[in-house]
């Protein structure tokens, strides 16, 4: 027997077209079409509009192939949308810039640089003097829990440590928005949990805007203020769910919180529904 998922939960709200005063990122009717072969186009994103408020932690959740990473790359300026536009603080995004810092699942650390060299790259590129950049970078390395590893090369570190370095490297040039593309997807469950906790601790200090792509419902609910649920083929926004849970969040408290449990169960149901519809098409 199949359980019909309910969609009428009272906290599920449709996409709001209104533009709040503190909007930092505005995605307006973005579509992205990739030509996969001469006769077939793949519509990765179809008419996406989304506004992200300054200081919000927003997760983009969806099945694989729903274009959630592509949406992040559009905001990063790494790919240009086929139509529509993305804006940061009212300026149209035309390319990558230090106001938007990416953290990738593959870490993408420079293998020829040490941990310190990787973290110092951004500040040096911004014209910060070497001594100053080094002091800042050492402080950041300590903050992500890697004190003592400054002169290690990435190949000498575990996956979790590499992702900590990647986070420090991005934070080092003070981006206004963090763009995280399934950052903990390549890590084992335990490391993943620890990094989620540490990311929240770091985030709660200065509340940077975060756009966080994931396919884990727990992760999205635990971290976010808002979860954007996407469906695939073509990539569309299905729902935007506000996660109304108190901060600072502690995992041990949250896991016992019935509100958290309800969010997870409801979103998981929606995820199943979205994944099935995608498979049928």
């Amino acid at each position, binding site marked *: 027997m199949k359980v019909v998922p309910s969609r009428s939960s009272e906290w599920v709200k449709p996409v709001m077209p209104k533009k709040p005063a503190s909007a930092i990122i505005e995605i307006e009717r973005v579509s992205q079409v990739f030509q996969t072969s001469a006769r077939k186009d793949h519509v990765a994103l179809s008419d996406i509009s989304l506004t992200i408020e300054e200081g919000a932690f927003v997760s983009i959740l969806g099945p694989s192939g729903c274009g959630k990473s592509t949406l992040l790359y559009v905001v990063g300026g*790494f790919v240009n949308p086929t139509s529509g536009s993305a804006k940061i603080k009212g300026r149209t995004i035309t390319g*990558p810039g*230090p106001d938007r810092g*990416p953290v990738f699942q593959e870490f*993408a650390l420079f293998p020829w640089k040490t941990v310190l060299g990787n973290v110092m790259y951004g500040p040096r*590129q911004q014209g910060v003097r070497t001594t100053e950049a080094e002091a800042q970078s050492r402080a950041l390395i300590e903050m992500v829990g890697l004190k003592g590893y400054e002169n290690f090369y990435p190949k000498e570190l575990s996956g979790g440590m590499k992702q900590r370095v990647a986070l420090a490297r*991005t934070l080092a*040039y003070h981006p206004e928005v963090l763009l995280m593309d399934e950052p903990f997807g390549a890590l084992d469950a335990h490391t993943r949990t620890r990094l989620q906790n540490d990311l929240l601790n770091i985030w709660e200090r200065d509340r940077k805007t975060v756009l966080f792509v994931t396919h884990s419902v727990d992760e999205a609910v635990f971290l976010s203020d808002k979860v954007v649920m996407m469906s695939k083929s073509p990539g569309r926004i299905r729902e935007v769910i506000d996660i109304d849970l108190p901060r600072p969040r502690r995992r041990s408290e949250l896991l016992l919180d019935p509100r958290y449990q309800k969010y997870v169960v409801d979103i998981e149901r929606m995820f199943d529904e979205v994944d099935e519809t995608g498979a049928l098409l």
Partner: protein
Amino acid sequence: MTSQLRSTSIMLGLAPIVLVIALWQSLVSFGFAPAVLLPPPGYVFSRLLQQLMTWTFQQEIAATLIRLFAGFAIAVVLGVSIGIAAAASPGINAVVRPIVRVLAPLPKVALYPALLLLLGFGHGSKITLVAADALFPILLSTYYGASTVEQKLIWSAMAAGTPRYEILFKVVLPAAMPSILTGCRIGLVISCIVVFLAEMITSTDGLGHVLVTAARTFQAVDMFVPLITISLLGLILNVLLGAVRSYLLRGFPEA
């Protein structure tokens, strides 16, 4: 543990060399080849040591080394810059690709008579030939390495505020370093072969010239001396390049 492994592999590597020398010695000892035509290894090696002390022989080595280094250096500079440029720009790639396709399989030695006429018997013709032969493996492996740089490394650098033209030097070149150095290793071996070959064909000095002169005057011992010298030089240069490689690639997983 590692040092033990290393010494074992060195022993295993030395074994075939010892075998070849033993075979060589036995060919002479058991009378398969007359000692006049195939001098025993001990005799050749003592002659080599004796020659290494003489000024004239050192001059020959110097001539060969100058050509080898100059040719190899030109090949590295041209190969790396053309390879990176072709990987970075589709326009340059469109121009370079057909030339490389036509010239790469061409036996460059065939150009040597023309080079002699153009550049004379001195260093110029030999350096050019060495550069022409060593260029292609370096160019092709640089191109391959530069065009397979992980996109997200480039994105990470661009997001950190690196301008597009600096990406080539700050990301693409260092990221392609493993392939570039593999190409250099092949290019160096080719340089050793080609410089010797060119000197054998037409030259007034150099190790190849020493060999040909000895062969023409039936001085078998003096024929083997330059042969062993160039092998030793190749070995030493390869070890040096290996040291440079492990220094430059100290952060890379594959090194």
